[in-house]
């Protein structure tokens, strides 16, 4: 009579509308200008990073402030694949994910030794060390950085087909390709997280976040779960980093390992949107983009405002904007929480 | 001096007290007995502000104190010996005592010296970390720590818990001297005999409610039995 379910009506709407959205997004470059495609690329990559960070901190309790390490190493590995190995840039992107995965092993080894809040700064230290080491890599431009060679950017796999399909110039075709890849990545990451949360592992993850001791006592292998989440998140972050710098085609340690761009902004997106939900980062990235567009001319005031908004949200609406919406009308577009359904119990409290 | 009116308390969804009324007069010794989980400690935590209340649920000298913080309530002269003693592990015995008196400095019978006279063993162990003591000695520190503020009302939550009978006797021997100092005492106890021997009045609690109020000298065994277990003896 009673059933454990994650089903909601809004969830069903999402299940139907998500494919429509994705198809529309795929077709968009046919009508949208290059500027719009670039903006959407930015939004999608930030959303990917936000979903990943949310998985780490919001679901896994792993508050990393060092995600820029994986963005940077992913981007640099892609550049290394192209410049040093002569690979096609698109094919070099997985190299970025692999490099980040490899870097995540020693990172986790060190950072997991630090308790609670010190974990956060521990990841930051590793990111700094990685940045400083990469800045010594003279073949990729050392501290000043380098660009993708002209031959490589002009022969990216798939751009020829896009050029003939939409009648675009080479640089614009590259943007479209990057946009599609970003779309694929964000769908894969969001879908993957959604699947993970609805699987048995999702429950285990919640147990880990809320109370490691209790989780251990009910037989969840918290150590392995934390490792798995951290490594997967690193690999996905590395892929995103590679993709972002494929689109810019220019890299430097300062840009690739920027704590502001790849961690601070990402954290603000998640906090403002709503930590611990899949909807939160989606809403957050839209707010973030709107703020960024509105305040773009005000230089550092913009980042200051963003930081303060995040503080205010944490103080007065710790579940973020999505939390406010969900508590008003119980909306769950990505229902991952288990709820008991069945006839109403009479006389309950 | 202290009254509760329809005092309720919740832990999240769970209601632990359902409208408790008790009174304690100045200088009086009141025992509160009841089985495990009856809500005795919860009552103590509510009176001392560890659990928040509505203002009017607890009155001290006629003034509502239910919504005050535990620090404010303590400064009004209501000190507690918490369940499980809860000494500060990084403080020595002497520092544990001093910390009990540092926020409320009023004239009264209790000082470091008189507490050491009450429990002489503590003077010998004054430099040890509080948690390096035996259970009985720790209980003495916890009582001494509460006395250091010269309270009008001393709340003692199960001061005999887990202690050997001889130690319990020593600790109970201190209670008359504490009363001579002028403090009223609320004794939460499982050990009914011990409690009745020193108390003027007794409250019995069961499942978050007061089931019996009586003068300690007049109460009959059967009365307590039915109030304690909810069945007639």
């Amino acid at each position, binding site marked *: 009579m009673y059933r454990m379910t994650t089903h909601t009506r809004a969830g069903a709407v999402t299940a139907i509308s998500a494919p429509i959205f994705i198809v529309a997004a795929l077709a968009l470059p046919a009508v949208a200008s290059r500027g719009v495609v670039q903006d959407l690329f930015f939004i999608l990559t930030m959303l990917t990073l936000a979903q990943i960070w949310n998985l780490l901190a919001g679901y896994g309790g792993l508050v990393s402030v060092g995600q820029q390490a994986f963005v940077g190493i992913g981007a640099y590995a892609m550049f290394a694949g192209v410049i040093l190995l002569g690979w096609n840039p698109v094919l070099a992107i997985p190299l970025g994910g692999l490099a980040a995965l490899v870097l995540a092993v020693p990172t986790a080894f060190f950072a997991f030794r630090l308790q609670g809040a010190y974990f956060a700064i521990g990841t930051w230290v590793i990111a700094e060390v990685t940045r*400083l080491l990469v800045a010594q890599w003279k073949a990729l431009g050392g501290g000043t950085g380098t660009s993708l060679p002209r031959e490589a950017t002009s022969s990216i796999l798939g751009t020829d087909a896009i050029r003939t399909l939409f009648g675009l110039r080479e640089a614009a075709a590259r943007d479209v390709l990057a946009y599609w890849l970003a779309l694929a990545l964000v769908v894969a990451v969001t879908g993957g997280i959604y699947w993970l949360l609805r699987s048995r592992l999702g429950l285990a993850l919640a147990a880990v976040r809320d109370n490691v001791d209790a989780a251990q006592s009910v037989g969840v292998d918290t150590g392995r779960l934390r490792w798995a989440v951290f490594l997967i998140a690193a690999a996905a972050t590395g892929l995103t980093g590679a993709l972002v710098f494929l689109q810019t085609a220019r890299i430097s340690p300062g840009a690739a390992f920027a704590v502001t761009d790849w961690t601070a902004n990402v954290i603000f997106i998640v*906090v403002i949107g709503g930590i611990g939900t899949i909807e939160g980062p989606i809403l957050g990235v839209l707010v973030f983009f709107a703020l960024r567009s509105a305040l773009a001319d005000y230089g*550092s005031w913009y*980042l200051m405002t963003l930081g303060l908004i995040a*503080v205010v949200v*944490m103080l007065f609406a710790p579940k973020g904007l999505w939390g406010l919406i969900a508590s008003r009308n119980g909306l769950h577009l990505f229902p991952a929480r288990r709820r008991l359904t069945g006839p109403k119990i009479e006389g309950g409290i | 001096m202290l009254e509760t009116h329809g005092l309720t308390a919740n832990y999240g969804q769970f209601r632990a007290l359902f409208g408790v009324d008790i009174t304690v007069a100045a200088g009086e010794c009141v025992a509160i007995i009841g089985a495990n989980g009856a809500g005795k400690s919860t009552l103590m935590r509510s009176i001392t502000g560890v659990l928040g209340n509505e203002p009017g649920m607890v009155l001290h000298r006629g003034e509502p104190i239910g919504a005050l913080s535990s620090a404010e309530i303590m400064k009004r002269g209501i000190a507690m010996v918490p369940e499980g003693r809860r000494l*500060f592990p*990084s403080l020595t015995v002497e520092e544990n005592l001093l*910390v009990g008196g540092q926020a409320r400095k009023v004239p009264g019978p209790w000082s470091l010296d008189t507490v050491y006279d009450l429990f002489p063993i503590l003077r010998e162990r004054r430099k040890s970390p509080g948690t390096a003591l035996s259970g009985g000695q720790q209980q003495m520190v916890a009582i001494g720590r509460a006395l250091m503020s010269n309270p009008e009302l001393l709340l003692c939550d199960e001061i005999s818990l887990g202690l050997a009978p001889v130690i319990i006797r020593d600790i109970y021997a201190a209670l008359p001297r504490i009363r001579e100092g002028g403090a009223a005492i609320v004794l939460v106890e499982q050990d009914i005999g011990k409690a009745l021997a020193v108390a003027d009045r007794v409250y019995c609690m069961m499942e978050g409610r007061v089931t019996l109020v009586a003068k300690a000298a007049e109460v009959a065994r059967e009365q307590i039995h039915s109030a304690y277990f909810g069945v007639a003896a």
Partner: protein
Amino acid sequence: MIWLDILVQGILLGGLYALFAAGLSLVFGIMRLVNLAHGDLIILAAYLVLMGVTLLGLSPWIAALVAVPVMFALGWLLQAAVLNRVLGKDILPPLLVTFGLSVALQNGLLEVFSADSRRIPVGALEGASLDLGLVTVGIMPLMTFASAIVMIIGLNGLFYHTALGRAFRATSDDAVTAGLMGIEPKRIFAIATGIAMVVVTLAALYLGMRANFDPSIGPARLIYAFEAVIIGGLGSLWGTLAGGIIIGVAQTFGAALNPEWQILAGHIAFLAVMLLKPRGLFPRAVD
């Protein structure tokens, strides 16, 4: 001989890092809060001292003295109005709030003071040095180190020999029971953060007198402070000094080999200690 010189420079540099770290360690010890804005608050204090010197014409020492109550009040307010609201079992809210503050502070400073490097002028003291026979040491590094030692002695005295220190330790052990002793934990936290900001001002004074600073260098100071605290083992200020010295020595040796390796060498020393002694060099017996 050159190596001895480098070693001594490194040890003295460790004094500066201990100054960075002491405030962080104090706050963590009492309320288990890691303030990610710590480095940016050091930079803020440095600008405050600088303004006292340039706008009011004070000597750096007097300017720091003036900045001390301002920073104490700022720390007190920050704790009372913001951080006390988010302290709790969940470590996420305080981390995210202080991270937001860090970014806001850094960019606010950038907007007000620009990205130009500044320095607190100290006149003749700046280049002065003392010949100790085997090595020559700068007066300024020597004073930094001496200040670090005095500060640690002072903080330990406060901690272990005053009623306030007792309240700090009691609250750190068990805030609920401290409340039953008439101690208001939130007030204690506010005072603790205020005191941490006093230490921060001292750190800022030496930071600003010894080297150039600009609004962007706060996070790196946070990291050095953090490394010193972790190397030392949580809970011991002398351990923190030892941690600072290890990073300082590693940095000066790294720089002697190749100027680009200075910072990296410090971080690597930290990672090496983490590898060999995960709980730091002087861990507290009870945690």
